[in-house]
């Protein structure tokens, strides 16, 4: 027994920074992404005919010349696909039918034997339009002066927590009425009122959207897509095309960056529509980089008017938020962004009186969808800068102000939900300490100004009340474990974290666990979507349940064979041990073949298959007029970020000296992966803060390339970034874990805005805070000549 395998030193899979289980393929070039799959010489190439107008009626479409072009296999228009689809509000069709609502909206599509022929055919499609007055501003769009973009809004289907206003451009109006804001202002010693305009930005995955679709002769459809939502796509596309969900198979290989853009259904439906008209032929549709910038989801713009007040000691008393979201031509997903912005509109602060109107407005801009932490970066950009200003007015140092008002266990939130235990105080302390927030430090040269900024944040998974996860666990003769799951590996490392959890729950070493990929709706278990930072928590719970189910089956098998009780058995390091008899058996073979009973009484057990299913059941709807209800969300992840910067007085250029970010992750299942998420999210947040804006002029994006739409490069990130995390466990999270994938980009714009203010005394309301904008503001203020 001394050398028994069960006694070998083994790393606890929980809390260990294991190497990612997809990394060897990714560094050798053998990892398979959708565009790497080979389809042979029957492959057809799709291109879309797109609207050149922001708002127009379609009078006539003539596809005859395109159809006659040699090499063209099929041309489709909206008339064959009239069904409306949408994740929350069903306001979208695959192609525009009677009118176009943004520049780039697909009106027709072609499948041809080559890209060149498909592009030529698209040019031969003739569309006659009658231009209509367009809406380019959300506040104007919400007024009764604006032309209607969706006159049929009253006929659209949506769940009972979305509130469209028929006869207007308002697709959702979410309200919070907590306490009594109007009488609270009198009790405030200090009040700040500010407006911010946060521009549209793009997710910019390095892999653009791609989907390949094929319908077989019997009418079954297979889709290969770079996707965060294979199951949602199966459901929505099947609905749009009137085919059964089980006749639509979505295979989702590795994703080359998602950030929300590859959630729900966007361009994936186009090759499917084409494939239905040319059975037996695979049709590939790959977006160009220009198309990626504005024809698919973007992060919608926000105009936010914040009024916030506190008493003499700096205790927050009242908040009024007026938010106009520029939802774009379709708000099928955006209506829920607006909702999230509303029910989290206090930020991570305890405020007794809150009034919020979060209004989602149709405009003739690109379609707003989910973008990493949706609604929260936009909200916090306004709120946390207003709070920074209020702290200064109240004469309370900023760190103390945030801590004094930070949300605590038992606080009644804006929705009436009671806050759970959380580590916001530690997160703020970590950032304050890392950046020495209490010290004013000198710039490195007389040509530079120096400043520090801090901002706190929170975010809940934004989703319907009942998004489900499921998983299975199987084993092979060698005792290795295969986990089946439906959540996607989009770079965040979820396959690795799930393997760690399965290993820990079963009692086997991490190295023995494999993930059954790629996700394939034909055999992978159901998962709602890879969004909302929900997988570690939700899919993690399903995987743990499946692993425990497999473990139970193994122990019952061994108990019966050995005539012992399962209470005396355990699985340690992949070996079943009995504490009573001190017998041992490895998992090899018994997990497939079972075990012989003693005294030649036959066999017990058989192939082990564990199953797990998880769905939150306690989330309630909120009152339409007040936004009040017992439990708005599953939980909140809180955190804080800060920046120590210098600004060049001659150019306005920002030099980051140091960054700090601290989030309460509940439990870091894989600390290195947590830190990698925080680093990448911080960079994406900083990039959006300094550089990024979809420049829209009358509905036209004027900068749809990497030359004109700059994202952060390696030299831009040349500074130390401190990322200590906090672990206050989540009551229903696996080992206490909750998500952190989106959160690191949420407070970054506000933290930078606050640092710029500290350096210059200038409050730049509208990001991006470019060198040019800073320089001109300094000139204006007389800081430079």
């Amino acid at each position: 027994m001394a050398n028994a395998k069960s006694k070998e030193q083994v790393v606890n899979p929980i809390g260990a920074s294991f190497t990612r289980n997809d990394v060897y393929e990714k560094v050798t070039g053998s990892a398979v992404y959708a565009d790497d799959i080979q389809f042979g010489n029957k492959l057809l190439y799709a291109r879309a005919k797109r609207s050149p107008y922001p708002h127009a009626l379609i009078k006539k479409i003539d596809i005859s010349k395109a159809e006659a072009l040699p090499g063209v296999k099929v041309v489709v228009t909206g008339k064959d696909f009239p069904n409306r689809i949408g994740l929350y509000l069903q306001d979208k069709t695959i192609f525009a039918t009677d009118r176009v609502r943004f520049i780039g909206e697909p009106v027709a599509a072609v499948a041809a034997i080559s890209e060149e022929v498909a592009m030529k055919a698209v040019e031969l499609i003739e569309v006659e339009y009658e231009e209509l007055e367009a809406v380019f501003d959300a506040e104007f769009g919400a007024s009764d002066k604006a032309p209607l973009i969706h006159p049929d809004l009253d006929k659209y289907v949506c769940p009972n927590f979305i509130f469209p206003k028929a006869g207007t451009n308002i697709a959702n109006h979410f309200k919070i009425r907590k306490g009594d804001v109007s009488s609270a202002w009198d009790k405030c010693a200090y009040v700040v009122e500010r407006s911010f305009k946060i521009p549209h930005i793009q997710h910019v995955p390095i892999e653009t959207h791609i989907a390949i679709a094929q319908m077989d002769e019997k009418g079954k459809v297979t889709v290969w897509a770079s996707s965060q939502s294979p199951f949602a796509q199966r459901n929505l596309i099947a609905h749009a095309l009137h085919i059964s969900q089980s006749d639509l198979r979505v295979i989702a290989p590795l994703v080359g960056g998602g950030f929300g853009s590859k959630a729900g259904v966007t361009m994936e439906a186009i090759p499917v529509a084409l494939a239905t008209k040319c059975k037996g032929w695979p049709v590939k549709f790959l977006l160009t980089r220009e198309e990626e910038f504005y024809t698919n989801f973007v992060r919608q713009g926000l105009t936010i008017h914040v009024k916030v007040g506190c008493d003499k000691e700096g205790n927050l008393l009242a908040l009024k938020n007026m938010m106009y979201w520029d939802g774009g031509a379709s708000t099928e997903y955006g209506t829920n962004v607006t909702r999230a912005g509303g029910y989290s509109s206090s930020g991570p602060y305890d405020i007794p009186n809150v009034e919020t109107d979060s209004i989602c407005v149709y405009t003739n801009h690109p379609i707003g969808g989910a973008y990493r932490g949706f609604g929260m970066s936009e909200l916090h950009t306004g709120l946390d800068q207003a709070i920074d200003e209020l702290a200064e007015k109240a004469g309370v140092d900023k760190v103390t102000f945030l801590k004094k008002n930070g949300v605590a266990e038992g606080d009644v939130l804006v929705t009436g939900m009671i806050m759970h235990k959380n580590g916001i105080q530690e997160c703020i302390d970590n950032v304050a300490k890392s950046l020495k927030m209490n010290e004013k430090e000198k710039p490195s040269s007389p040509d530079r100004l120096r400043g520090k900024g801090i901002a706190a944040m929170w975010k809940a998974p934004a989703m319907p009340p009942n998004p489900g996860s499921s998983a299975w666990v199987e084993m092979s003769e060698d005792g290795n474990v295969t986990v089946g799951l439906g959540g996607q590996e989009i770079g965040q490392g979820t396959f690795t974290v799930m393997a760690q959890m399965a290993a820990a729950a079963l009692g086997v070493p991490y190295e023995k666990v494999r993930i059954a990929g790629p996700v394939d709706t034909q055999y992978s278990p159901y998962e709602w979507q890879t969004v909302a930072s929900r997988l570690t928590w939700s899919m993690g719970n399903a995987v743990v349940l499946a692993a425990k189910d497999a473990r139970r089956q193994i122990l019952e098998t061994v108990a019966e064979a050995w005539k012992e009780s399962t209470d005396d058995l355990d699985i340690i390091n992949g070996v079943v041990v009995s504490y009573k008899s001190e017998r041992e058996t490895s998992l090899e073979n018994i997990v497939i073949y079972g075990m012989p009973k003693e005294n030649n009484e036959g066999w017990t057990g058989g192939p082990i298959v564990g199953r797990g299913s998880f769905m939150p059941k306690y989330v309630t709807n909120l009152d339409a007029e007040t936004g009040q209800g017992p439990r708005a969300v599953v939980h909140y992840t809180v955190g804080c970020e800060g920046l120590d910067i210098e600004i060049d007085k001659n150019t306005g250029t920002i030099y980051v000296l140091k960054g700090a970010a601290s989030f309460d992750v509940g439990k870091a299942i894989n600390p290195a992966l947590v830190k990698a998420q925080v680093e990448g999210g911080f960079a994406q947040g900083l990039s959006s803060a300094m550089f990024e804006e979809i420049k829209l002029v009358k509905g036209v994006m004027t900068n749809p390339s990497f030359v004109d739409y700059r994202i952060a490069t390696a030299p831009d990130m040349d500074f130390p970034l401190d990322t200590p995390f906090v672990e206050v466990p989540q009551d229903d999270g696996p080992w206490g874990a909750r998500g952190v994938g989106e959160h690191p980009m949420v407070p970054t714009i506000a933290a930078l805005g606050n640092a710029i203010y500290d350096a210059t005394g200038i409050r730049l309301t509208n990001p991006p805070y470019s060198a040019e904008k800073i320089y001109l503001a300094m000139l204006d203020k007389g800081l430079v000549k």
Partner: protein
Amino acid sequence: MTLKTITLTVNDLVETVDVPQNMTLLQMIREKLSLTGTKNGCAAGECGACTVLMNGEPVNSCMVLAAECEGANIVTVEGLAKAGKLSTLQDTIIEAGGVQCGFCTPGMLISATALLKRNPNPTDSEIRSAIVGNLCRCTGYVRIVDAIKMAAK
């Protein structure tokens, strides 16, 4: 479209390929040679995902015509590992945790390989300049730079 027959070396193997005059090196690598490790991110020479070594220098393969590659020596990400062993950079990027979605990784590895060949001991800012043309949206470049530093040691 007229075809041109070219002979070139790709990952130490001599290849003779018929290419249309307008085919890019990227298309030839992916479609004619089925080496799909090299990625297409913009087809405009702006993102660096398609970086390969051409006669030892990193190039955006989407901006090079295949027809111009007669006699060229090309190395793609598939050519970095030798005799069943990963290159030092492949090892260090795994160790440092510099891979997330993995789509920029092949181009990033090629640019870094070229850097270390011409400058075995680069400074931090030399590393960052060498990969300025390789966009990454996931990592913030933190662990990619760490990996290159580790490989230089």
